[in-house]
Each structure stands twice: as C-alpha cells, then as structure tokens.
C-alpha cells in the first residue's frame, strides 16, 4: 500500500484542503462499496469451500454451519496425482509462457512500431487476422500438426507458441505503447550510431516497464486459467495443470465433489493473485516516475 510514492500525486487540486479531504473520503467510500461487490464472489467461494458437502447448494446462510477443512484435504489428495503436481505443472507452463511472450512479442512489436521494412503493413494485418478466427476451427489441424512433431502429451504445444509470439494480442498491445514513446530518443541514439538492437534493449525496454508488466501479468493469469489447450494436448494425469485438475471434480453424469472443487479453486487463485500483486508494482514505474523530460 505504501509503495505509491507521494510524488505521484499528479494533479494538484485547487480547492481548499478541507474540501479535498472530503472528496477523498467520498472516493474511498465509493471505492470500498464497489470493492464489496467485487469481493462478494470470492467470499462466497471461500465460505463454500469450508462447508459440508450437502450444505453447499441448500443452505441459505452465507456462513457455514460448521467450518471444516475436509474439502481441502480431500481435494488436495483426492485424485491419484496430488494437486501439488498440478501446481508445479501450471507454474512451469505459465512461467515459461511469461518469459516467451514478453521477449518474442516485444521484439515483434518493436519491429512494427519503430522499424521500417517492406510488407510491414501486410504482416501487421496478418497478425491481426490471427486474432479474429475462432480457435475452435483451427484446433484439429493444429493438433495434427503438433502430433506430427511428436509434441502431443508434452508441454511444448502450450509453451513453444509463446516463444514465437503466437498471441497477437500482446504484439498489438506493445505496438500501441511503443508508439507512445518519444521518438526523439531513438533518433538521437541512432545519430550516435546505436544499432536497432541497442535502441530496443537500452531505450525501449527500460521505458516500457508498465506495458511489459501488463503483458507479464496477463500472460501468467491467462495461461494459468486456460484449460482448452491443456485439455487437448495433455493426456496423463501427472502432466495436468491446475485448471484441468479442477474440471475433474464435477461431472454431470455421476458423483461430483463440489467441496473439493471450491477448496482447490480457492487455492488456485492464490498464485495468480500473488503474481498480480508482485508485478503490479512495475505498473506504476515508468515515465511518470522516472521524471523524464521531453
């Protein structure tokens, strides 16, 4: 909370100190009220994870009649493979994806935003086009492709595309931010004989922490939350991700373990929430705090 430097107070209010304190109080009240709406599902989930199984859907009260951690124990060990393995797998896949995405997408974005080359607009349009086709229809051809490569049942189909900047979302995002950086900087550097690589590495990257942090956060969370890719490509329990593990708790044709589902859902939120908290610090560093003059 305290990591907001005071100098970040960007807009100097013109009103009296009393009025601004009132305004600030009102804002906090409003934000807190909104937070309750935002938090309600999490509280419900948390309560459900401590409820006895037959109370989850039939009890009207928000608080469980008995608090029990049975669901956590059952959920963690219920499957043949412990949830710890799923967490490890998810960490590996999401972690590698973050590295791959941030590197590959920032390079492509730098090319699109700052360099000139032939057919640039064509490639950019192609990149956008890949965003528009629903994945459901490329699933099977892609599966065949990865199977030819012998990658099915490994993490490779989930990770390698990230190192090849396959998600145009991030390229487009970074392009928009890179184009907002003052152009004088690279022009000056170019005059000094800097190579494009040095400009990218020494100027663009350091100045783009907010967008790189954004990309890192989104990549981690979305990869963590993704289940369709892992569903199709991973076939052994020991290589399952957390999301895939969660989906084995419920089945509409037989017995389900809702307690286990909710307990493990709560646990699955912990890493992505921590990741978010950690990386959001980087969001506030950038031009605004480096105090760079233009």
């Amino acid at each position, binding site marked *: 909370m305290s990591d907001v430097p005071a100098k970040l107070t960007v807009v100097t209010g013109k009103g009296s100190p009393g009025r601004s304190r009132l305004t600030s109080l009102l804002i906090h009240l409003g934000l807190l009220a909104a937070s309750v709406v935002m938090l309600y599902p999490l509280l419900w989930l948390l309560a459900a994870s401590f409820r006895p*199984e*037959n*109370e*989850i*859907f*039939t009890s009207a009260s928000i608080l469980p009649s008995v608090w029990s951690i049975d669901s956590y124990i059952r959920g963690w060990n*219920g*499957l*043949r493979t412990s949830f710890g393995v799923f967490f490890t797998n998810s960490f590996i896949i999401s972690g590698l994806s973050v590295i791959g995405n941030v590197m590959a997408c920032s390079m492509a974005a730098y090319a699109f935003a700052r360099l000139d080359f032939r057919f640039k607009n064509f490639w950019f349009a192609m990149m956008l086009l890949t965003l528009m086709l629903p994945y459901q229809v490329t*699933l*099977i*051809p892609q*599966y*065949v*492709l990865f*199977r*030819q*490569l*012998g990658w*099915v049942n490994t993490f490779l189909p989930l990770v390698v595309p990230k190192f090849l900047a396959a998600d145009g979302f991030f390229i487009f995002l970074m392009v928009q931010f890179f184009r907002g950086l003052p152009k004088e900087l690279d022009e000056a550097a170019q005059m000094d004989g800097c190579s494009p690589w040095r400009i990218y590495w020494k100027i663009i990257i350091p100045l783009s922490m907010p967008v790189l942090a954004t990309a890192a956060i989104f990549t981690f969370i979305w990869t963590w939350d993704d289940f369709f890719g892992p*569903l*199709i490509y991973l*076939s*052994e*329990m020991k290589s399952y991700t957390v999301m895939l593990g969660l*989906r*084995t*708790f*419920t*089945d*509409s*044709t*037989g*017995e*389900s*373990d*809702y307690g*286990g589902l909710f307990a493990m859902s709560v646990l699955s939120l912990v890493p992505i929430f921590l990741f978010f908290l950690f990386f959001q610090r980087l969001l506030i560093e950038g031009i605004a705090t480096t105090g760079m003059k233009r």
Partner: protein
Amino acid sequence: MTIRIDRRHFLMGSSALIAAGAAGISPAFAQAERLRLLFWGGQARADRTYAVTDLYQAAKGTDVEGEFLAWNDYWPKLATQTAGGNAPDIIQMDYRYIVEYAQRNAIAPLDEFVGGALKLDDFDADQLEGGKVDGSLYGISLGANSVALMVNTTAFEEAGVAAPTRDLTYDEIMAMGEAFNSANVRGGMKVIMDGSGSEPMLDNWLRQKGLALYTADGKLGFDADAMTEWFQLWSQMREAGVCVSAEDQALDTGPHETTMLVLGKAAMMPSNSNQLVGFQAVMQDDITISSYPRLAAGVGGGHYRKPSMFFSVAGSSANKEAAAEFLSFFVNDPEAAAVLGVERGIPCSAAVRDAIAPTLSEQDQIALNFVANLGDLLGPLPPSPPAAAGEIDISLLRTLSQEVGFGARSPEDAGPYFVKEATAILNRA
C-alpha cells in the same frame, strides 16, 4: 481403413511445411503391452476404474493407462484425438454417440473376439443387443440402468402427501400437485419439475402409447398430434401450478446443482436409477427413486434396461485383441466387479450381480432392486437412436419446450413444428 488413411494423409498435407521437417519423428503406436483408456466421470468412477487397471496389471502384466474427463470435456477431446489419428485404444462410449462413431469406423466391431479374448457367456441378451449397430457388436455395456424419478421423500412428508409408488399416474400427479400447493411446502415447492423438455420422459410416455421416439430405420416414431398432446399435458400442469414455472425450469442447465430437485423447487424429477448416489450427496433431504408416471393405471412398458455406457475399441487401435481382453476382465472378473460395484449401472453378467449384491450400500441396493424388478413397467429395448438424435434433443426439443413454457408458442403450434424440424434434421444428417 483406406478412408482413414486418406484423411490423415490429407491433414498431414495441410501442414506439410512442418510435417516435412519432422517426417522422421512419426510417433510409433505402442506395440508393447500398453493400452490407453479414456473415460468420462467423476473421481468416484476414476478411483474404481484405476483400481481395476491395477488389478489387471497385476494379473496380466498389461499396463492400462487411464485418463478421465468430465462429460462436457470428454467429447471434444475424443473427437480431436480421433480426427488426429491418435484415438485411445479403449473408449468409453455413450448410447447417443455409438451409431455416429460406429458408422464412421472410429470404433471397431468386436464380433471376431467374442468367445476368444472376449468372454460374454452369461451376459444379458438385451445389454448385448444394446451395443450393436447394424448387427455388429461395437460396445460392451458396462451396466444397465433405467430411467427413474428422483423423489424427495422429506418434502412429501412435509406436504402430508404419500410418496409415489410404482403405480403413480400422470393424473395422480395433478392431485398431488394441488396438495403440495395447499400445504405451501417451503414457500411454494412444486411436486414435479417441468418434464416437457426431457427426452427420456417423452420417450417413456410415447412407449406407453405404443409409439416410439425413433423407428428402427431412424425415422421419427410419432406424429404431430402426439407431440401436441405432450405439450398440452405439460401446459396444463404448468398452468395449474403442478409443475414448476418456465422461468424456474430454465435454471436447469444440466449439472446436478442446477436441477429443480437440488434447488428445492420440485419434489420429483425425471433422472436415471444410477444417479441416486450423486444426488443424495448434495442434498440434505432424503431422496429415493421410483418409476416414471403411467399414462393410466395398469399401462406399462415405458421403461427399459438401458446400457448406461459402453467400452468400445478404437478403429485405429493396433492392439484390438489386447483391448478386448481387458474389456472381458472388466465385465467378468469377480475382484474387478467387487471394486466397480454398480457405479456404472447394474452389472450385465448374472454371476457378477449375484456376487456383489451383498456388498452394496443401501442406496446401491435400492438402485439394483429397482432395475431388477421393473415388472410390467419393462418394455423391449428400443433400436439405437439415429445419429441426429442428440441434435434433435439439444437444439429442438429443449428449446421448443421453453418456447411453449414461456408462451412464445402454443402446444398446437409446437407439435407440427417439432415434427417438421426434426424431420429436416434427420434428413440432413
């Protein structure tokens, strides 16, 4: 066989750019004693299934690698793997899809193994028949079950109404519904959910009239008048407040936690005999099962012993015989049977049934007795439904029943409309 190669050849060609570079890596099918098994279900089913694969490994030395998924995830994955030429050796198959997969050679006929690797000597004839498509055996039934009403007996006690028996009729439901309403159980619980969009319930009702959902040659087995009558029946119940409102019924999207029974909006709902355990686990009230209502006293023949699910062998499997051997073990071995219980339905081998009966829990006993003693309610096994049956159920019957429920269409209009649209879907498929 040629067809399959053609398809793979084609799909390979489409990704020739990469495939060319990776020609050497073509993944070899496991020729060793290793089988892949894919099934849908929850953890309870998985635990039992894995215990059996362990037994098999110990007994025969063959490694059966099982993977399980929830129903909704199962079908896209199976379709993708099959289309990618990478189907598992043993596939859990549903009554609804077996024709689709069999007619396209995605699963293999097993007749050549019967008597050899696959022992089915005391297997129930109707269950064997249920696994046949065009006269060949494509699926081994893993258990029989029957449609059944889930009945919330606690709610019936609160209403002061006697719980339904196997002689329950549709007319009696009307009377029960009025008793429920005047007793005002839990602020308006209805006696039954709106069953107009339930395909098994429609099927059961038609069979009692001597009709069928589908004929043996895959046509609609009833006409517009019957369909209109069906919608009228439920409209009456809806208007009298006997069944739940359309708005409430639309909350039911399939999973247990969305059903009228679990939400406490209705005291009875159509389901299957093998789901008693699953429903009881998420409810505080006591529930039991009973038969679907009769058209009138003494009219029966609506129920049948349906194969709850099958094991099939992939058409592309290189280990068909080994797979058939595993199936044989799965449905015959006494130790395996003890582990499996009736989780997938009532075992189809008489010897197995007798062996496990004493070991079952109270709820499992109820289910077993129900299916074993259907009596005059039991009719013949219907022919397997045409491939388009699923589409007619999902995208026509359920939607149309909601249109009638919400008053967007009258029963008199919905009957002919259903027949017209269903026929179009059947002709297209």
